[in-house]
């Protein structure tokens, strides 16, 4: 199992290297464009050239990537081309915002998906049809449309939640809760829709398995069968769903942060990518990939503890 973990870690490291290099290569090659855009209107070709050198954009791709990588290892992600802000500083402000929307959303998605999935699979009938209906509808409507509708209803019409902005937990916990509620809801609808459906399938598969029949035949009551045996065996596919949900939440955050003007990672990435702010984009790419890898790793670990067969391998 330890060997397995090490292999997983190595693999993740490889993924991280390839993804960051891919990101780097994608943005590489527009040195004067970047420099003149940094300088703005009225810059002379001489000052543009000086800026190119100052930003280090005149060096070969591999050298630039190597420099970025070696500094990144020491925690120095460089400074934004445009604002001169430390990338690590920007990330330390932005990542918590995104996470404080995504993590509760993920937790609630998991919880609600399991509840709905179990109810739909076990009870069937009306609740099952509701889950089916909800999952189709929830995945069909783009999350930013849901977000806009939420703003109209809960922020402008009823004024229950703030329409925009983010309050740090440390500043005012209650305001924090209020500020993340609508963004989280907007993300939740789509995620739960997908999650509940998948969990329902996993539950149905497990419910139909031979050993469940045997457990029933042995006189076990339905409840312990479902909550101890079926849930546990449906958990492995469920966890895979959760880690995929995390990915889609991270993607969805880009739109949601736009609507709610949240100072999160998604907006940082969007803004930086639009103007080829290479260090900033690289920072956000790296953090996103790390988050995804960590989630996958944890999900893997959980699957391995839950599933004795996987533990053996």
């Amino acid at each position, binding site marked *: 199992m330890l060997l397995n973990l090490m292999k997983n870690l190595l693999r993740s490291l490889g993924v991280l290297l390839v993804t960051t290099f891919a990101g780097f290569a994608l943005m590489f090659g527009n040195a004067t464009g970047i420099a003149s855009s940094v300088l703005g209107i009225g810059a002379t070709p001489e000052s543009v050239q000086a800026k190119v050198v100052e930003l280090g954009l005149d060096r070969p791709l591999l050298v630039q990537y190597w420099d970025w990588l070696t500094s990144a290892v020491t925690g120095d992600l460089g400074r934004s081309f445009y604002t001169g802000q430390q990338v690590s500083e920007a990330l330390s402000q932005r990542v918590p915002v995104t996470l404080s929307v995504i993590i509760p959303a993920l937790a609630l998605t998991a919880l609600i998906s399991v509840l709905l999935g179990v109810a739909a699979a076990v009870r069937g009938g009306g609740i099952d049809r509701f889950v089916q209906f909800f999952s189709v509808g929830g995945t069909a409507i783009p999350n930013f449309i849901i977000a806009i509708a939420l703003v109209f209803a809960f922020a402008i019409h009823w004024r229950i939640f703030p329409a925009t902005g983010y309050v740090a937990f440390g500043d005012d916990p209650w305001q924090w809760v209020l500020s993340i509620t609508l963004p989280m809801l907007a993300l939740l609808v789509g995620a739960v829709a997908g999650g509940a459906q998948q969990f329902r399938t996993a539950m149905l598969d497990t419910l139909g398995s031979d050993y469940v029949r045997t457990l*029933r035949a042995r006189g076990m009551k339905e409840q312990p069968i479902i909550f101890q045996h079926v849930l546990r065996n449906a958990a492995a596919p469920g966890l895979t769903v959760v880690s995929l949900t995390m990915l889609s939440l991270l993607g969805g955050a880009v739109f949601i942060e736009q609507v709610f003007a949240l100072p999160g990672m998604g907006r940082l990435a969007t803004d930086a990518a639009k103007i080829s702010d290479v260090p900033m984009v690289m920072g956000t790419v790296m953090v996103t990939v790390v988050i995804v890898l960590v989630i996958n790793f944890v999900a893997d670990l959980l699957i391995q503890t839950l599933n004795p067969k996987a533990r053996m391998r």
Partner: protein
Amino acid sequence: MTSATDNRTTDGRAVRFAVLRKLVKNPIAAVALVWFAGVLFIAAFAPLLATGGPNLTDLGAANLPPFSDGHFLGGDAAGRDILDRLIWGSRSTVMAILIVTVVSVAAGVTTGLIAGFYRGRFETIANFLVDVVMSLPGIVLLIALYALTGPNLPVAMAVFGLLIAPTYYRLVRSIVVSVRNELYVDAARVVGLSDLRIVGRHVLWAVRAPIIIQSSFTMAAGIGIEAGMSFLGLGDPTSSSWGIMLQQSFTSIYNNPVAILWPSLVISLTVLFLILLGNALSDVLQSSARSKVMPRRKRRAAVAEAQAAITGSPVDAEPAELSSSDDVLLSIRALRVGYPRSDGGITEVVHGADLDIRRGEIHGLVGESGSGKSQMAFSTLGILPKEAIILGGSVLLDGHDLLTDSKRQREARGTRIGYVPQEPMSNLDPSFTIGRQLVKGLRAARPMSKAAAHAKLVGLLERVGIRDAERVMSLYPHEISGGMAQRVLICGAIASDPDIIVADEPTTALDVTIQAEVLEILRGLSEERGLAMILVTHNLGVVADLCDTVSVMKDGLIVEKADVDALFESPREAYTQNLLASSRSVELMEIEQ
């Protein structure tokens, strides 16, 4: 494995029309199909359908409300007709989803095919790359691409296609991996087909249906991402795609709020219908193998109808009295079981069978596949599949009908009636140790302390021939052999001291030497404990070895009942005779010492 079942139900030229017919029968799918076809039609004939070009402006029409004269859905902030723009926009949208679909299918399916078919190094590398792509923040990449290429919808959609290609890769690879081990692929190899022809003839066919289903979801995602990119201001503002319309109307949301409704609606509806279409397709193409559970109301109606139909039927008319009722432990009377068909009707698989088991009697229930013998066994325990419908009859334990009294039936399970299943491995929960699941099962039936349960089970495991019982208790199911697993299951069935055991082909999955041992154990237990047993089997040798009495089933009916010696010596029914003859023709009747 799933692909095998899928395969069986999917294709064929004849089926192709059937698919369409089934789709159209499903009202939701029909609407979805019509909508999607409509979008394609509108995209194709946009120049004929629109009253003007996509950018024809009439400043007088700026922000006109819907249903105005000449502007059915009103005008946008630039004075363009919204309906016309929606019509023209369908072209960009259709192009976008086509590109996404074509690119992702081309990339994902080819790599998936190669990786799945040849495995090896290519698969390792492809898997790694798929991991990379799947952990990439796709939207950020698309934005970075925008910085590089500007608003270039085809390129952005092609890249998005590459980003979601892993979905196809994984789907195709897993199917191909299972298909390449299918016997028909082996057969094609032996016959001398080249790899290319094998892939083209056998493998591609197997992945076709899943690809079609997945593609409807891909198209839905394509529309979503086009709208999303446009919403972020990364679309091509010169186009009239629905996403651009949404974004442009969003900027004047306060001035002309209703204008945002139309693109939102067409986007959401198109996505919705594509998803519904995908679901319907997967229902039609993949899940016809699993039958649907009938709604409760329909079930009741079916049962009532079935009961009305049988009044006076000869099978039911005079219940055969086989024995005096006082020593009968369990009796099945006029049992009828059915399954719903896809056309809404019911197929009856057990047509009113009777059976009596006395204390200590081992009763063989013999028949060929599809004779309904397992359905009988499951009925006694109330563990028929969810979709099965009991159309009539009763299962009497000590004179009480278990079918009408579900509480009593639950109580009887485990405590009065034990169950030994056919497939030993799949009947143990893979997540729990042998010990834990045995203890749990025992304590569920008979309340006792964990330690007492443990001690009792260890004793029983030793009784069924497991030497290292304490150690086996701590193992997981995948760590023991099939023979051992079957002993564990027998142990689980008898631990709570039931009066009767229902054994469903308990030795079929075992090797013949193990079978002999298991039969020995069953006989021993029956003798020691006075256990009655219903032994469901197709093997007459097993019956001859173990049973006291036999019932022969054919097509859901019991055709002959007798003591074992009588039956084997002088079978009455032609069917029984045939069965016996066939069986004996391949047995080692004589053994020289």
